């Protein structure tokens, strides 16, 4: 009699390290959602890679029992791309903070999106720099006072969802650490999505930017009849005030991984000897001493 192997449990994805986050940090909710999503997808820990940059939130891979790549500030996306292109069979998820992803790392975001690299990017958006102790981030509100903006923030926050849609991300969604059920579901869908999936997860920094209560007031779900294939409608939702929760945009288009796989399949027909022979100085020449 064959037995169905038991599905993995969320706790199976816990590493031996205890999260070092401040008690109450939103990142705990994101981590819990990630464990649950991984369990729901029954991901093989040996076949899964969590990539991050630098920041409080980027410590996350350390708390997961899969493979992990805690890279440099702002670099999770190109690292994750390299991992996924090198081995398309791996489940690859990049995680990090809003500062990591949209300040120092902003140059990489539109390119990962337009390439449609088959990875999920989960940003723990606390609208602040946590690890460096509370300076403003690209998503901080105008007029916000912080150690680096004692006179108030002069800048306009970046609308990361609109940016994602504009950049060509093929899956754009928003969740929140304080609604782990919905966030778990979004992570599951994002990981199942073939292509670049972006999730902005509101994740309050209780130390430096505790907006959890205000945010709870501002969240509303995307209407059930919202057409996720409609880019203009997605922009509308992204640009509306408040936080629209759920999937704003989804499109199915070929991933760069699939394109490369097809390219390599079509091109593969050579070897080192043939390549060296192409440089042969006497290729096709009548061999022998030339006559003058």
């Amino acid at each position, binding site marked *: 009699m064959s037995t169905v192997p038991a599905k993995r449990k969320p706790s199976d994805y816990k*590493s031996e*390290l205890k999260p070092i986050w401040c008690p109450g940090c939103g990142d705990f909710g994101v981590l819990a959602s990630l464990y649950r999503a991984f369990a729901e997808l029954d991901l093989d*820990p*040996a*076949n*899964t*890679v969590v*990539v991050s940059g630098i920041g409080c939130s980027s410590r996350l891979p*350390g708390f997961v*029992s*899969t*493979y*992990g*790549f*805690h*890279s*440099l500030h702002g*670099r999770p*996306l*190109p*690292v*994750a*791309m*390299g*991992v*996924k*292109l*090198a*081995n398309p*069979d*791996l489940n690859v998820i990049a995680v990090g903070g809003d500062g990591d992803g949209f300040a120092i790392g902003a*140059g*990489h975001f539109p*390119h990962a999106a337009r390439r449609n690299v088959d990875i999920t990017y989960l940003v723990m958006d606390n609208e602040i720099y946590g690890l460096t102790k509370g300076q403003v981030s690209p998503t901080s509100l105008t007029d916000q006072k912080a150690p680096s903006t004692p006179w108030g923030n002069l800048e306009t926050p970046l609308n990361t969802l609109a940016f994602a849609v504009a950049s060509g991300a093929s899956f754009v969604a928003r969740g929140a650490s304080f609604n782990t059920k919905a966030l778990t579901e979004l992570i599951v869908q994002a990981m199942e999505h073939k292509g670049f999936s972006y999730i902005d997860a509101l994740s309050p920094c209780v130390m430096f930017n505790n907006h959890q209560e205000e945010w709870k007031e501002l969240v509303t779900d995307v209407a059930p009849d919202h057409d996720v294939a409609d880019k203009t409608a997605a922009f509308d939702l992204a640009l509306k005030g408040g936080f629209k929760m759920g999937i704003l945009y989804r499109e199915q288009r070929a991933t760069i991984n699939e394109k*490369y796989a097809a*390219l*390599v399949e*079509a*091109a*593969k*027909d*050579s*070897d*080192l*000897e043939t*390549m*060296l022979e192409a*440089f*042969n*100085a*006497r*290729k*096709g*020449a*009548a061999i*022998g*001493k*030339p*006559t*003058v």
Partner: protein
Amino acid sequence: MARKSVVIRLAGESGEGVISSGDILTQAAARGGYWTQTFRTYPAEIKGGPCMYQVRMGEERIYSHGKDVDLLVCFNQEAWDLHWDSLGPDGVILFDETAVDIPEEYAARARPVRMEKLAKEIGGSLRAKNMVAVGAVAGVISFNTTPIEELVLRRYAHKQGVADANIAALRAGGDESADLRGSLAITDPVEVEADRILMSGNQAIAVGAIAAGVKYFAGYPITPASDILEWLSAKLPQVGGITIQCEDEIASISSVLGASYAGVKSMTATSGPGLSLMTEMLGYAGTAEIPCVVIDAQRGGPSTGLPTKTEQSDLQHALYGGHGEAPRVVIAPITVEDCFWATIDAFNYSERYQVPVILLTDQGLATRMEVIHKPDTDLIELWDRRTSAGLDREYKRYELTEDSISPMGIPGEEGGQYVSTGIEHDELGHPAYTPENHVAMQTKRWAKLEPLKNGIVRHEHYGEEQPEIAIIGFGSTYGAVREAIDLARAEGASVGAFYPRVLGPFPGEQVTAFAAKARRVVVPEVNFTGQLARLVRGECGIPVESHAKCDGLPFTAEDVLDVIMERIPS
């Protein structure tokens, strides 16, 4: 008497056919069984500006591009103005009769060629100008035009009319220089092997990477490294690999580390400004112990500097650039042939020691064409990284082993899970900041490179082993130094050169031993501050004389000969 080698310099405006003439001549010479080396200068502008293509060809292996020009071909007046003083004492001049005025005193050795006129009359378009020029050159050096005609026929295999016109232009060019025919005749190649190849340094690196098993290349265009990106974009998929043009150098190196972490051999190629951007990630690779190969085709600096000129000024950046003492290996290949082998070495060291390897070439070496021996692929030996597969003990990513090399878990491998991190970590890879742990890990990361100092590395020795005048150099200056040593020894000088392939970790003991009996130690290099000289002083504690120059041009053998002869003890 026929000469063993000639130096031909073609000069004109870029877009006039100078480069294509040089290319055809080089390829034909190679087909005809000659050894060649080329050298070119070109403007940084996209279109227009003076450009020059120098071909040195001869019956014996050629190591440098040559100094005195035997045959100068001027496509326009500026070409004459810029290059007349490179002419050797018996140098011959060919020039387009409509475009150039040659001063009276040179008239006797100058021959007008109706380049434009014949091109239009016979070739049917100005495009054939290059063939007229090549024909005229072939006549003067008594070079059999068969290989050239073969090349033309191959290139225009489907356009008989164009092929015919080009061949007619070629022959007409030969008639133009009939009265100088054979005045610079070169001796026929003696031994003509079938297995010689003609390639540039960049191409040798790209093919070397394929030989080493590269499966992921990411890069961002920059002169003079872009050919590697371009060539691999065409070829890597043919052997099952991927090439990607990233949004910048930071993404390139980051993705290379991601790919290497995932288990495939990975590489990027850049020049100085790009290397600067990669520095932070190189430190990460050193700390997290991820193999990767970075090609730095150096160009003139500082800053965006002289993008189309050569310099060896990234040495210190390659060795030390970055914060916090992360280990890396720096290799400098010395010839085009060596670019192939050094790239394989780079992958081997990188994989075995789980360390980033920077391969330092420069504009001169990267872009010059050389006829070389076809690499014997049976001699290729590939080293692989140590992985966690099949371990019969508890898996620790950064285990302190006897040789300080730890098993690397490869995603997909059961039981090898770990988190790669640039944060100081313990054997398990967990963040750990204790003084003991940091000392242990720094020690491990540097100790594993010890074998690279002691023996496994190829060095190049030329000339006397214990010379009175010892030359220590690196990279592309080797060819000129080698020829200079031949010339100096012919005059009775006791001179020899030592070229370490691996500069970091520096083989201080070998260099010191080599220079032990020397009366003078000279370090020629193409930069302003004498970076290698300082390195030798620091690592070996011996007095050395720096001979650094930074005019954007490679050394000639004659330059180096002067340096040697000035120092002959009297």
